[in-house]
């Protein structure tokens, strides 16, 4: 999670990586997951907490968090 900690993330979902110089945009749920990752939560914890904050069922939460992590890996952010 060291990579995540260095990111500058604003409340509108704009993300700047000061090391690589890359910028990203994310949506509200993406922002929420990123914050949880920064807090050191595991993917399993995030999946189980997500339905408590958003209108989503557990199965969709699992699928979407997995996909989101795949996107982060694709961008080499985790």
């Amino acid at each position, binding site marked *: 999670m060291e990579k995540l900690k260095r990111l500058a993330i604003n409340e509108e979902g*704009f993300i*700047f990586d000061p090391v690589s110089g890359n*910028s990203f*945009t994310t949506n509200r749920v993406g922002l929420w997951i990123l914050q949880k990752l920064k807090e050191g939560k595991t993917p399993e914890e995030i999946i189980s907490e997500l339905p408590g904050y958003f209108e989503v069922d557990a199965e969709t939460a699992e699928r979407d968090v997995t996909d989101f992590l795949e996107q982060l890996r694709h961008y080499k952010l985790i």
Partner: protein
Amino acid sequence: MSEEIVVAVSGINAVDNPGPGLGVIRSLKEDSSLKIKAIGLAYDAMEPGIYLDWLVDKSFIMPYPSSSEEDYLARLFYIKDVTGLQVVIPTLDAELPLFIKGEQELKSKGIETFLPTWEQFELRSKQRLIEMAPRLGLSVPPTEQVSSYSDLLKALDRIGFPAMVKGLFYKAYRVHTFAEAEGAFYKIVEEWGYPVLVQKVIQGEELNVVGVGDGEGGSLGMMAIKKLWITSLGKIWTGVTIKHEVLLESSQKFLRETGWRGAFELECIATDDRIYLIEINPRFPAWLYFATGAGINLPARLVKKVLGQPVETHSEYEAGRLYIRYTYDLVTDMDVFQKIVTRGET
């Protein structure tokens, strides 16, 4: 000073192949009788105009003109709601069909344009150019329209090298070999689709005319220049105003014959005995500020004409005025960038 007028201008991409937008906005802002709020219409968050706050007051990212007409117009209506937009000056070729076809719908919502009619717009096509040029006392270089690689090869056999390989809207490459021609052909097809034009290269002086037609056969002003130095992309870097009587007379004829409305640029090449018409661009060229600097503020005249205000129409300028383009470095923080990528507007 009169009331504030909200004008949206596209082509604020002042890059190595610059759009005309910033020249248009700068001209509008320099007219002391107009008070302009300039809206920049951008297609990418990195278009420099977005960051030049002394020229562009507010910018919006637009859907591409290739997306649906409905989406594009919806975006303009949104901008109208947010800013009170009154006049749009589209400056990019790819946008013009959309604006010309959407003219009435835009007008009904209170957004004015001053553009050629569809019929006038189609005069740019190779076939119409060939028909019209003689009536203006001009010639046309041999040109062929191709839609396949094998047609390209056949056309090059007939036309020979060097040749120009051109897209219907954008891009022109000068090619000297079949390999270069192939590369240019596929680059154009990939980006802009078919058909592709192949044109014989005429050796001579590159002369251009910029102007605005009043829509009734007359002119709201025009000016002729010679390009002195062009970049590797074929873009003017230095130029000089000229008073070429034959060329200016042909331009007047062009307006009379077509009843042209709106901005235009005639690209010509003069040899010893004739003037070739290479292209009619139905919009301002990127160097149009040259005319403003030489005393003919065409964008301001266009806006006044649209709004029904009195307009100067003279074309008096001195020959020998010099144009020098230069680059400029801007350093800023990420605020504007963040806004434009997250909200689509500044």
